[in-house]
């Protein structure tokens, strides 16, 4: 009996040891995370499109955030200025990164030269007003409050001082990321993009310092819809960068104040979307909705090089109001994934008018396009020759109105194909692109009376897109040079006659 007891005790002990080892190795319980508050640190804040580095701590800490509200005059678009009310001097406001369980001590400083009192409502705060009441601060003062980051996620913050719409419309919003305890899976690059609208007295592109237009804001009719606070904040040299094979994570916010964004990256599919900035992820998404005062985290791997355009797919906002950004991916081509253009042929459709409806059912009538003169190959910013550059601009900027076939829309948008108006006078065409075109015009015998807004293109781009247009659809085959565009841009006023 004694021996049996001894044996039993031995087996028991053995099993206890085994299970202890199991517990220590068991991954589900995240034994490495300690929930005890330890240490104190100052949050490092970044301006868009940059994001502070991931938090590697495995315990919550006391985090001190210092954010200054500041009223600044800055560029909204080329030649257009606006007085922005900001969190940290830029629109959108600084990106704040903390971890679930952190105690955040928030110091809101209102710059002494501010005209307005300001406050902050962080959607990451559980408590009345999201901190708004506790942070109401007169110019030249500082308010302090603290909160515990209870829920992980990507949250919008904004000013909530009366009239709240105007404070937001003037640029007072940003994002705060509360990382989950276990952290986010590592990716190669992270960027911060925030969409918002601006309501200016002048129409899109009208130069000078543009004041806030209350009526337009109430009508929800913005002159500008932009990423990261201004037209071009994410294009050209400001484009975000990546290399082929890398995984990108974008923290996207929508400051509003009014519009919901249909966020899309042209030529990419989001592998993963944390819808509305929450915990659930969806996979293989083309366009994700981002509500005003909401967010999303999107992740995707970039397989092929090129420029990928970020847009609000409510598409007039992209092409007429500025909601365009760029992700430039460098690296080697992968023709198996994307071939590039393999052929370019003229397509005549069917001769028989009755068969128009059946366009794609009959035999296709294709004929090779004569080779375009490529002798003047210019290595431009995109590594494309002017015709290709022109085509890429046309298919992003112009086609929405003038259509891919250059036929326009009867009675609304004039045709560019075989256009007498266009072929008659290069200068008028250049001016229409850079200055816009308003009032009655006659094209191929029909009158049009619409508004073409000025396009946000540089001289090289204008030259390229016009050269492309002049060499398409039975047009005169003219070439337009950068110098010609520059000349018109200086002259400003061109007679339409």
């Amino acid at each position, binding site marked *: 009996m004694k021996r*049996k007891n001894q*044996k*039993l005790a031995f*087996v*028991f002990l*053995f*099993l*206890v040891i*085994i*299970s*202890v080892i*199991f*517990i220590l190795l*068991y991954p*589900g*319980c*995240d*034994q490495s*995370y300690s*929930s005890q508050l330890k240490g104190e640190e100052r949050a490092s804040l970044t301006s868009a499109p940059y994001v502070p580095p991931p938090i590697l701590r495995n315990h919550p800490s006391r985090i001190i955030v210092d954010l200054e509200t500041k009223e600044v005059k800055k560029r909204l678009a080329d030649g257009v200025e606006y007085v922005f009310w900001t969190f940290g001097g830029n629109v959108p406001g600084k990106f704040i990164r903390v971890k679930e*369980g952190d*105690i955040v001590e928030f110091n809101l*400083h*209102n710059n*002494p030269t501010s005209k307005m009192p300001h406050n902050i409502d962080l959607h990451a*705060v*559980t*408590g009345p007003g999201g*901190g708004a*009441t*506790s*942070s*109401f*601060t*007169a110019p*030249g*003062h*500082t*308010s*302090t*409050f*603290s*909160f*515990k980051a*209870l829920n992980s996620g990507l949250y919008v913050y904004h000013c909530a001082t009366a009239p709240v719409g105007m404070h937001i419309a003037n640029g007072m919003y940003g994002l705060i990321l509360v990382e989950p*305890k276990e952290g986010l899976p590592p990716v190669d690059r992270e960027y911060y993009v925030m969409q918002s609208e601006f309501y200016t007295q002048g129409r899109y592109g009208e130069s000078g310092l543009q004041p806030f237009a209350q009526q337009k804001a109430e009508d929800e009719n913005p002159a500008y819809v932009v990423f990261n606070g201004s037209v071009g904040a994410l294009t050209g040299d400001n484009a975000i960068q990546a290399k082929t094979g890398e995984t990108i994570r974008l923290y996207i916010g929508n400051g509003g104040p009014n519009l919901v964004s249909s966020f899309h990256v042209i030529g990419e599919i989001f592998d993963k979307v944390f819808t509305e900035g929450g915990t659930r992820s969806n996979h293989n998404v083309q366009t994700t909705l981002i509500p005003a005062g909401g967010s999303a985290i999107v992740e995707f791997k970039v397989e092929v090089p090129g420029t990928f355009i970020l847009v609000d797919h409510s598409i007039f906002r992209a092409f007429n109001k500025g909601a365009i950004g760029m992700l430039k991916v460098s690296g080697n081509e992968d023709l198996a994934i994307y071939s590039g253009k393999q052929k370019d042929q003229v397509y005549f459709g069917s001769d028989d008018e009755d068969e128009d409806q059946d366009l794609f059912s009959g035999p296709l009538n294709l004929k090779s396009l004569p080779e375009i003169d490529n002798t003047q190959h210019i290595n431009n910013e995109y590594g494309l020759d002017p015709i290709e550059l022109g085509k890429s601009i046309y298919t992003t900027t112009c086609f929405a109105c003038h259509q891919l076939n250059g036929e326009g829309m009867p009675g609304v948008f004039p045709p560019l194909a075989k256009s007498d108006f266009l072929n008659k006078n290069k200068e008028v065409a250049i001016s229409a692109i850079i200055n816009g075109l308003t009032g009655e015009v006659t094209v191929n015998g029909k009158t049009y009376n619409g508004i073409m807004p000025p396009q946000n293109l540089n001289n090289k781009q204008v030259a390229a897109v016009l050269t492309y247009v002049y060499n398409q659809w039975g047009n005169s085959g003219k070439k337009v040079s950068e110098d010609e565009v520059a000349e018109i841009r200086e002259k400003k006023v061109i007679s339409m006659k």
Partner: protein
Amino acid sequence: MNKRHKIAIYGLITGAALFLFTNLFGCFATAEEKAEKLITKTETATEVKHGNHSCCDNEDAGEISSGSVYQLESEWTNQDGHMFFLKNLKGKKVVLTMFYASCTYACPILVQDMKRIETALEESNSISSYKFVLASIDPERDTPGVVKDFAKKNKFNLNRWTILTAGPDDVMELAAVTGFKYKKDKEGNYSHSNLITFLNEEGEIIHQQVGLNQDITNSLTYLNTQN
């Protein structure tokens, strides 16, 4: 079944139970922590951004410190009709509320809130170093007679409690100093902040309790940690 096997099976069951238990416990610890839903939200501490903080004015005991409410030289009248200067309160910790006697909604609750503080301080035997002050914002109706009745009705211990009245401008200055907001309506009633202000022995504001029926623990902590 072999006995040895039996033992092994018992052992296994116990071990597995232990394994599950420890694991569950480990998991619950974090869940519990999540359920804690604790939010520490201190009241707005507003301070000036620039300039040097003159935190340590070494002034004479007799002098009134630069940040003291007692810098106000206004003349008040107490419930007995005697002239009263705010600096008479110097040397005591003060629990101060602005009110008006004919208020039917918030002021009676504020008085009860002050009484709760009084009771708590009585229990901790530190009551002798405190004064409870009600300052009226209604100079027209709150005469010394009216406030005396108010004191009787509320059974105030007048060794600790003082009810003050003054002219409109003096009331405005005290309100301004304490951040108390108020507004008279057509009927002669007032909209006003629900605010209890705590002063240290120097007459400096050490804490303000905003709202009605608040948990007084926080305020008591402030009172006890000062000096």
